[in-house]
């Protein structure tokens, strides 16, 4: 088991959640015009839906109920598939991510959210409950388990993974390990450069050129579509090219996932065995170590751990048992 000081991680997580809760609790109560009295009961304007300004939480909730329910349903599917380590449910989740989160909602976590975070300029909480649910779910799952978001929730990542499933493996080009490990850092560079560019110029339009998530809105210039086409063609040859080497959001979540509380367990046999390392499509396993910031919790290695026919841990145990049984008889 490699999990360096879980206590420290748990404490960090609690602090983070508390800060988040506090800011959210304070936010709706700030008023710009405290001196302005609330509308009088005999307000002569009689705006048809005046009560909306002092709308109760239940009404706000009702307006967003369908959106929230659909999102909760999707997250439930995601987590059930993750905890059951079910490959089938994972593919269903990714299909739903492309159709529902991608083309229908088209609100993924984007670098614009990171821009907003630098100035704490977030949408109004009570009017955008679904967005907050989405963002908080992403952050919390990342801190608890790792880049689950990248592996099965992000619509673009899901799309390229589904693409990879369809493309004949003959076309695939495996990047040499040493180059791959260096290329992993490009995304951190891109994240830093993009955020710095934003801080200096306050111009968000850069997001169009560093991430392709706008594609789901189907609104873009010809140049953007051409760039996307090039990226997708490259993705046919190098699987998950964008997610592994370029995505600034992935880099941000990668930084966050260094806090991961519940890590993938490793057997002592993992020091010498290479099965998982070879299976990992994300290049996240290096020898005995799993690099948390590259791991997207795809479950491939964990399914191998559970496989008593393949994992040396179980094979060795079995052999010992057989030997013990032989000695008894």
């Amino acid at each position: 088991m490699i999990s360096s000081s879980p206590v420290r991680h748990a404490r960090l997580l609690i602090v983070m959640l508390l800060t988040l809760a506090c800011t959210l609790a304070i936010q709706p109560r700030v008023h710009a015009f405290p001196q302005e009295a609330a509308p009088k009961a005999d307000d002569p304007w009689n705006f048809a839906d005046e009560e909306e300004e002092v709308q109760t939480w239940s009404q706000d909730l009702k307006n967003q109920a369908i959106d929230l329910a659909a999102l909760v349903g999707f997250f439930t599917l995601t987590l059930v598939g993750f905890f059951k380590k079910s490959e089938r449910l994972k593919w269903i989740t990714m299909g739903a991510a492309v159709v529902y989160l991608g083309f229908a909602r088209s609100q993924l976590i984007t670098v614009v959210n990171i821009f907003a975070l630098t100035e704490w300029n977030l949408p109004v909480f009570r009017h955008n409950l679904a967005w907050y649910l989405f963002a908080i779910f992403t952050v919390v799952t990342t801190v608890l388990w790792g880049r689950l978001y990248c592996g099965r929730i992000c619509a673009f990542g899901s799309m390229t993974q589904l693409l990879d499933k369809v493309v004949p493996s003959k076309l695939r080009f495996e990047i040499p390990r040493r180059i791959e490990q260096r290329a992993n850092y490009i995304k951190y560079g891109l994240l830093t450069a993009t955020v710095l560019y934003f801080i200096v110029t306050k111009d968000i339009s850069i997001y169009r050129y560093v991430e392709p998530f706008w594609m789901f809105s189907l609104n873009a210039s010809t140049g953007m579509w051409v760039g996307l086409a090039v990226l997708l063609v490259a993705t046919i040859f190098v699987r998950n090219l964008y997610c592994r080497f370029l995505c600034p959001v992935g880099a941000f979540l990668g930084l966050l996932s260094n806090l991961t509380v519940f890590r993938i367990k490793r057997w002592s046999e993992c020091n010498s065995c290479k099965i998982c390392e070879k299976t990992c499509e994300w290049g996240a396993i290096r020898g005995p170590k799993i690099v948390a910031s590259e791991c997207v919790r795809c479950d491939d290695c964990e399914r191998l751990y559970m496989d008593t026919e393949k994992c040396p841990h179980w094979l060795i145990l079995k052999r010992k048992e057989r030997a013990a049984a032989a000695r008894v008889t």
Partner: protein
Amino acid sequence: MRNPRLVITILLLAMAEVMLSFAARQATPDATLQAQLKRVFPGATSFSAKQPGPPPHFVAYSGDPSSKTIAGYVFWTTEAEPLERGYDGPIKMLVGMDTKGILTGVLVTEHREPYGYFSVEPPKFAQQFKNKDIRDPFKVGADVDAVSTATITINSSTRAIRNGARRVARAFLTPPGTTK
């Protein structure tokens, strides 16, 4: 560098250039503002300087400028409804409203919405608010056009216009007849 004097000269020139461009931008803000005010309130002949309020606003005058006949009010949504925020900060819009509570025009001047280029930027968005009564429901999907996938942006900008206009109306307008 081999020639420090050349480098210093270039640096100084660059600084001067930056300062000049700033000065040039500072010189004409009023002309820009007047043009913007005129666009959201074409019927007015002149506008007051910004009044502190609350909420902060411009008064639009009609007829002979000396008569000071009030035709309506113009305000920035970011000042009348400062807490409203879209995806990444407020969506800055200039809104004109006549004395009867009918909107005369909306102009989106600044925003940082990722999907703004196809939701609030096209003139179609601002145009639909012209001649809209502030007693209308302003419901996205009903009397305000919805733009799929840009929900947060459209909802936030619509709320800013509606709530800002109502706040200004409550402060400065006389409700038309008490016909209720």
